[in-house]
């Protein structure tokens, strides 16, 4: 506006006489006697131009709307341009024709499709089973991956049934594996600062060192226990080899959200223990983006860059171009290739490749992440291994049907196959026989929970694509009746302690993994062979040409049976195999009766088990905090989308943090720092369990810890873990379900007494609080109404005194909040509301002091309600 005013001042009134005439009263006399049109227009040129530009720039729809009266509109005008008035038509047609999507036929051509797939994968990584999942699942982008979230055709309840009675399969290949090579003591030295034995068995635990058992633990930042948790990991040692008993290999599986953090922490801790600088051996691939746009596949670019770098490289056996393979397979292949090739290049090229072309527009990709620290080397096996999780009692049968032990005995001396070379060693081939026997025994079991927990079995299996699943019918085959004698023999084999030979696998060997991936027959080739096969449906006989795939199978024991649950829920297997084979096994397992699940199913499983799931249930880790912020934003956005009348008024409900977990508020502010941690000390947790669990039936007059004793030990824990949260399992007493962000608070004595006397009393009710903003609005509206009537002065404001009285409600202030519900809902396993949450240690102490007879009784209030409900905590 100022701009325009200024212009007017200077050029608008050109007559010099105006100033003098201002004095006179007559307005008409002020008007200029003549207007110079050109000058006049010049001054307004800028304005006019702006106006013109604005009218031209209008969007199509706006143009049509604005330019045409409603009465001129015709049906289906957007479909047929000729229904538009001619003067508008031109504008519309130009816009519409500009971005015409190519036809579906064009888009689905293998080359174009592949290009499209590559484009879509630029910012994130696809799992190998992505295309399969994308057709059937809701996908989410998380942690740099595109992860299947939930099946579109199955509810959570159906998935629960699958885990309880059948077999659910979840692709967890996004879990990242970090390989550590070196002497055992060196590895243990470096890693010991990351874990603490107080939080349970560490990576150096004796039971896991043999490699027959997978271990799990929580890793912390260097020497910072109990604060600074990174996240939970599972780890696996390679069984000792006889030739080099001290050289060990360790795989650490972590979640992608804490992968970077863990990698850095590993590097720094090893560099400290080894007194050595970190040597970055990873290979970065730089290739121009233009190449991508021209439709080159990533692997082709990799090829060319390898050649450019003048590394002596044998010709790549897999040629992408010549194959008429299905597109899905090719996109898979692309991933497979860049891994192994990077490795090879790195081996021979040794140091970093020359960076001749230093243009900015480059597509940088770290192909093979590796660092050497003294005698220890850390390398990333991210996206090099595939991991499928099987949950449920039937997973045994499903795996038994897909994993057919391969035949490794062939007489010819040709050693072109990896397995011939590998099994030439007598010990390994004997081990293979042991594995086969053990697996035969395992198959006989009805559930994975019948075996020893976390047991690791190595196997070499046949290509799952060469044989076909039987058509499943209701009536079992008479052939499948299992004879008792066979059964009892194998039972004994399982009971014995598992030997290292059974757990060993060729999968540990990098060269073999590469060979297995690169010699995989493509789906196209297999299908071609199948179509030439004489009797359709029977298995292909490929003899030595058939791929042999080394896999590792790891047992999950599921929940431990206790008073609350039946136990063994969620037991199953994890199947680990080399990259590139995911799709083959996935489809075979689906055919054999597994039911696919996604990330939601994993979360649901953890909720039913009432166990912690990373990263949601680790509020003290950075990944957990990020997750909490994400949930907060999501909830807030959802809330603000609704009109005020259609959403809960949290002021009235007096919920301070309805969208986030305010852990900081649980701690007194005297200490200053808001750094809290989760109590993971095993001993402290078990003493807490002993104190807090009220024994229902006091056997032999045993009182579960007297109050004074309990107080003393809680004081002891408090002194060590002042600002700590404790993970609690919540089960409702009668009605209701806990919800996310609900509060856990201490009941008053009256509440407990009322509960004991009145059977139908489910919990006290909180009084509704006045919303100050709403009150203000009301007053304003009232004032406006009165103003209209001209009565404003008659009514002076007189609200304040009434409000003060309302706030003094004895019912409200005295229920201290000691924690929050992290997740809750109706538990199908327990048949009632259940959840999990965190309580502060100080809060638990207060809870113990307030009502000693009912130690684990708390009140839960959900964010959208005023109703408190009774619940019990267990630890």
């Amino acid at each position: 506006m100022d701009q325009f005013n200024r212009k007017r001042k200077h050029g608008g009134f050109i007559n010099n006489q105006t100033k003098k005439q201002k004095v006179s009263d007559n307005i008409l006399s002020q008007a200029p006697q003549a207007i110079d049109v050109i000058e006049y227009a010049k001054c307004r040129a800028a304005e006019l131009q702006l106006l013109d530009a604005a009218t031209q720039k209008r969007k199509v729809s706006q143009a049509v709307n604005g330019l045409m009266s409603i009465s001129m509109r015709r049906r289906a005008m957007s479909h047929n341009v000729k229904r538009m008035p001619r003067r508008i038509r031109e504008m519309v047609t130009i816009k519409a024709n500009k971005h015409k999507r190519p036809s579906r036929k064009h888009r689905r051509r293998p080359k174009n499709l592949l290009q499209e797939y590559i484009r879509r994968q630029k910012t994130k990584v696809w799992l190998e089973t992505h295309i399969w999942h994308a057709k059937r699942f809701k996908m989410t982008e998380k942690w740099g991956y595109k992860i299947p979230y939930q099946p579109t055709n199955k509810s959570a309840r159906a998935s629960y049934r699958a885990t309880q009675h059948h077999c659910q399969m979840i692709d967890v290949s996004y879990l990242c594996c970090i390989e550590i090579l070196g002497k055992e003591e060196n590895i243990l030295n470096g890693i010991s600062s990351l874990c603490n034995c107080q939080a349970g068995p560490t990576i150096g635990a004796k039971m896991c060192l043999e490699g027959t058992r997978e271990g799990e633990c929580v890793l912390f930042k260097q020497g910072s226990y109990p604060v600074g948790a990174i996240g939970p990991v599972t780890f696996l040692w390679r069984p000792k080899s006889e030739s080099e008993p001290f050289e060990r290999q360790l795989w650490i599986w972590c979640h992608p959200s804490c992968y970077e953090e863990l990698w850095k922490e590993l590097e720094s801790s090893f560099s400290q223990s080894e007194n050595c600088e970190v040597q970055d051996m990873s290979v970065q691939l730089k290739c121009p983006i233009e190449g991508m746009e021209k439709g080159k596949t990533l692997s082709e670019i990799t090829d060319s860059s390898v050649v450019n770098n003048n590394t002596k490289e044998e010709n790549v056996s897999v040629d992408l171009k010549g194959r008429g393979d299905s597109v899905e397979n090719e996109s898979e292949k692309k991933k497979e290739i860049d891994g192994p090739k990077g490795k090879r290049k790195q081996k021979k090229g040794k140091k970093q490749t020359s960076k001749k072309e230093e243009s900015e527009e480059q597509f940088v990709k770290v192909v093979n992440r590796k660092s050497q620290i003294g005698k220890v080397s850390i390398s990333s096996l991210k996206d090099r291994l595939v991991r499928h999780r099987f949950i449920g009692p039937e997973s045994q049968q499903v795996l038994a049907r897909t994993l057919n032990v391969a035949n490794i005995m062939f007489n010819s001396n040709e050693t072109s196959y990896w397995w011939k070379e590998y099994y030439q060693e007598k010990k390994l081939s004997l081990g293979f026989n042991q594995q086969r026997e053990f697996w035969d025994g395992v198959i006989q079991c009805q559930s994975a929970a019948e075996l020893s927990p976390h047991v690791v079995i190595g196997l070499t299996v046949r290509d799952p694509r060469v044989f076909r699943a039987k058509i499943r019918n209701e009536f079992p085959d008479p052939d499948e009746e299992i004879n008792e004698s066979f059964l009892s023999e194998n039972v004994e084999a399982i009971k014995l302690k598992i030997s290292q030979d059974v757990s060993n696998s060729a999968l540990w060997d990098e060269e073999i993994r590469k060979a297995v991936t690169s010699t995989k027959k493509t789906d196209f080739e297999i299908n071609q062979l199948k179509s030439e096969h004489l009797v359709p449906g029977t298995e292909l006989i490929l003899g030595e040409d058939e791929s042999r795939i080394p896999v590792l199978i790891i047992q999950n024991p599921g929940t431990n049976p206790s008073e609350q649950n039946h136990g063994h829920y969620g037991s199953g297997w994890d199947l680990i195999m080399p990259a590139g084979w995911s799709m083959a096994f996935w489809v075979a397992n689906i055919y054999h009766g597994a039911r696919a699940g996604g990330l939601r199913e994993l979360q649901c499983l953890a909720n039913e088990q009432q166990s912690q799931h990373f990263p949601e249930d680790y509020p003290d880790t950075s990944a957990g905090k990020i997750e909490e912020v994400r949930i907060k934003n999501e909830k807030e956005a959802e809330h603000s989308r609704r009109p005020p009348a259609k959403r809960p008024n949290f002021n009235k409900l007096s919920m301070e943090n309805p969208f986030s977990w305010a852990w900081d508020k649980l701690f007194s502010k005297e200490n200053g720092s808001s750094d809290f941690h989760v109590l993971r000390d095993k001993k402290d947790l078990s003493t807490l369990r002993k104190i807090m669990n009220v024994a229902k039936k006091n056997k032999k007059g045993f009182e579960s810890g007297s109050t004074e004793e309990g107080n003393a030990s809680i004081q002891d824990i408090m002194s060590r873990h002042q600002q700590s949260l404790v993970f609690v399992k919540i089960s409702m007493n009668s009605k209701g379900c806990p919800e996310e962000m609900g509060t856990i608070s201490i009941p008053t004595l009256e509440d407990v007494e009322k509960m004991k006397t009145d059977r139908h009393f489910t919990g006290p009710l909180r009084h509704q609080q006045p919303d100050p903003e709403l009150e203000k609005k009301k007053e304003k509206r009232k004032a406006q109404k009165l103003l209209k009537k001209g009565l404003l002065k008659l009514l002076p404001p007189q609200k304040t005194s009434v409000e003060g009285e309302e706030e003094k409600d004895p019912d409200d202030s005295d229920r201290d909040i000691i924690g929050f519900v992290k997740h809750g809902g109706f538990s199908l396993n327990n048949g009632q509301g259940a959840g999990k949450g965190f309580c502060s240690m100080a809060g638990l102490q207060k809870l113990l002091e307030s009502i000693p007879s009912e130690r684990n009784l708390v009140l839960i209030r959900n964010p959208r309600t005023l109703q408190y409900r009774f619940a019990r905590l267990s630890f």
Partner: protein
Amino acid sequence: MSASFDGTSKISSVESSEKSKKYKEFIDKEEYELRKRLPRKLPKRKTDVYVTRKTNFTSQLERAQKILDSENEVYIHGLGAAINQAINLGLQLQTNGHGSVEIATHTSTVELVDDLEPQTDELEPETQSRNNSAIHIKVYKINPIKVELKDS
């Protein structure tokens, strides 16, 4: 209905009782965590009902009755503390049959395995095996003509 222990298990039970005492101490000291394995199950037929204490009795009865009506026989298995419930279920089925249903009972011993999971780094994982008695009740209809009628 006495449990049939064979000789070998008797001898081993003496040893194992000592051993289990030792393990109990360990568990009390919180060096080990006890994790019970699932008892071995035989492949399930249509007519098998495994009884648990935690399942609702009426629904178990209904299920068994349904199988009895359609298949003319049902095998009820109960282990350990669930034996009472299994017997109860069998007798209920018999009374409901008003004389047309018979019972044949068989007892056995089941070997159970517990895993002791170490809570510290230095300990090896251990297993502990113990015996528990089980009952297998065959509930069947005595009128064979009815079977044929149903089939045809």
